[in-house]
């Protein structure tokens, strides 16, 4: 029997390190190397590197590119930056989703404003073709060229409070690169012939697109570069980071880190239901009073006239014990009524409760002798809006645990820290 599972440029490296591998989105990816817990903690205390070449990039270029994205993407590119809702500017990127006419999520994405009339859209594993086709189908009379770069671009992430210190050691001009680089901004280009490529080069001359984003809730970067340059960068960062106890991290740590950071997993926490009433309202083009939308986009009408109303909300448990999420899971209210299902239930191993409050290993105010035993957390989808602090039970066919509805889980995350504090 032959299988058509895809591999990333680092596949051989993962296997040579004895990583526990699994199929994720059609790619043979590492779940963990030796310890998920150590990998998770490395990103909170120091740094970790992640192979993310399974993710897909789609470019959209031309005089109609911005308008096409305005119509297909949920966030308003003319009003998405900061509390003042300024237009997306060159070198900035923004989170949102692509919806169908029913308002259901096709995939979530980050849109990068590369230069005038040129955007890069980064989506999840295996979704490059789907999103490229979706954009193509909705092109209309707009002048735009959509190009699916799936499996043609290398990508890896470095995440954790010392990420810039480690990365700086392999950049040609770290000072210039890190100057003026807020959260959700990026510099550089993957194409060596682009004038933008000079903004970020490795010390061997390789151009990279460096983005101050990530999927862990911690300070760090996503890096796009030529596939044949990935392994060298990966190994150099590991070598450079050994003094900081850097760790290669698999998808399991990525999942537990993002759950604690209240970030959704596409096709699990967002999916075939309306993309609204969830913890990510910043991904929708809400007016300042939150009563309407600032632009037209595919799925808008369905979101405005929902028939099947559900609410996605974050929860945190009392301790690390969890249940099996997904099919067969239930959310039960105080009256014993089943009111929904559990979308994600994971253990954030870097946090724990002390007298009811949640602390992280990185919390400056953690109680003396605090030991993070881990905390169960995730998302429920329920048929009524629950209030923060409210307790519900979540259950699978084996176990029932009581959890609290929360608006945040892991405290003292570093993703938004000023760059000056991190270099």
């Amino acid at each position, binding site marked *: 029997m032959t299988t058509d599972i895809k591999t990333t440029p680092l596949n051989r490296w993962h296997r040579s390190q004895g990583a526990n591998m699994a199929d994720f989105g059609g790619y043979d990816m590492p779940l963990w190397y030796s*310890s*998920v817990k150590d990998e*998770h903690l490395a990103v909170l205390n120091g740094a970790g590197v992640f192979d993310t070449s399974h993710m897909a990039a789609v470019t959209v270029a031309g005089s109609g590119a911005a308008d096409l994205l305005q119509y297909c993407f949920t966030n308003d590119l003319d009003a998405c930056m900061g509390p003042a809702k300024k237009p997306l500017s060159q070198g900035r990127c923004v989170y949102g989703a692509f919806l169908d006419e029913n308002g259901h999520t096709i995939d979530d994405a980050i849109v990068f404003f590369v230069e005038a009339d040129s955007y890069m859209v980064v989506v999840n594993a295996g979704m490059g073709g789907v999103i490229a086709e979706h954009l193509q189908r909705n092109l209309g009379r707009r002048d735009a060229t959509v190009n699916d770069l799936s499996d043609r671009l290398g990508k890896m992430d470095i995440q954790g409070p010392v990420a810039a210190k480690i990365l700086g050691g392999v950049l040609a001009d770290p000072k210039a690169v890190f100057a003026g680089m807020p959260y959700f901004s990026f510099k550089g280009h993957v194409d060596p012939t682009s004038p933008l490529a000079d903004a970020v080069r490795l010390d061997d001359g390789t151009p990279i697109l460096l983005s101050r984003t990530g999927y862990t809730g911690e300070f760090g970067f996503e890096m796009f570069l030529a596939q044949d340059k990935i392994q060298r960068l990966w190994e150099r960062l590991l070598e450079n980071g050994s003094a900081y106890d850097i760790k290669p991290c698999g998808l*399991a740590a990525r999942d537990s880190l993002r759950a604690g950071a209240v970030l959704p997993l596409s096709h699990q926490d967002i999916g075939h239901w309306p993309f609204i009433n969830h913890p990510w309202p910043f991904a929708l083009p809400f007016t300042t009073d939150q009563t309407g939308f600032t632009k037209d986009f595919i799925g808008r009408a369905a979101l405005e006239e929902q028939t099947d109303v559900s609410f996605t909300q974050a929860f945190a448990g009392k301790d*690390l014990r*969890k249940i099996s999420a997904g099919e067969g899971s239930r959310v039960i209210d105080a009256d014993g009524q089943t009111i929904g299902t559990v979308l994600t239930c*994971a253990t954030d*191993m870097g946090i724990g409760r002390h007298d009811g409050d949640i602390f992280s290993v990185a919390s400056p105010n953690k109680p003396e002798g605090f030991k993070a035993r881990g905390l169960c957390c995730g998302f429920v989808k329920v048929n009524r809006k629950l209030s923060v602090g409210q307790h519900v039970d979540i259950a699978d066919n084996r*176990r029932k645990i009581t959890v609290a509805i929360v608006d945040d889980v892991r405290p003292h995350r570093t993703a938004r820290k000023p760059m000056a504090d991190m270099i």
Partner: protein
Amino acid sequence: MKAISELNLPEDVRYTDDHEWAKKIGDVVRMGISDYAQDQLGDIVFVELPEVGSSFDKGEEFGTVESVKAVSELYMPIGGEVTAINDALADAPELVNSDPYDGGWMMEIKASDPAELEALKSKADYLDILKG
């Protein structure tokens, strides 16, 4: 992930198809999960065990082992009454990863039918299952 040749599979314990092990120590039978099982599960963060004095049949679920990613059932290799559980796992569940046959044992039982232990798999037979 360990290669099959790297697995620690002692000769002096018996194995089940569900990757538990059992070993006679004096007049009780001690049990836990195999090196293969702990390697597949990854970091174990919680082990839920029954009360001393409870009884289970062979193949019955007696507890759960929880990794960062998932909760997995534990099944009785043989039937009997629980005479002791490994209290050390409450504070150090990672012993199941680091030392699955000694420090990471889970519980001891008084076997209801000693013949059930003999019927479990030898190392060689267990290896055959792992090799598929």
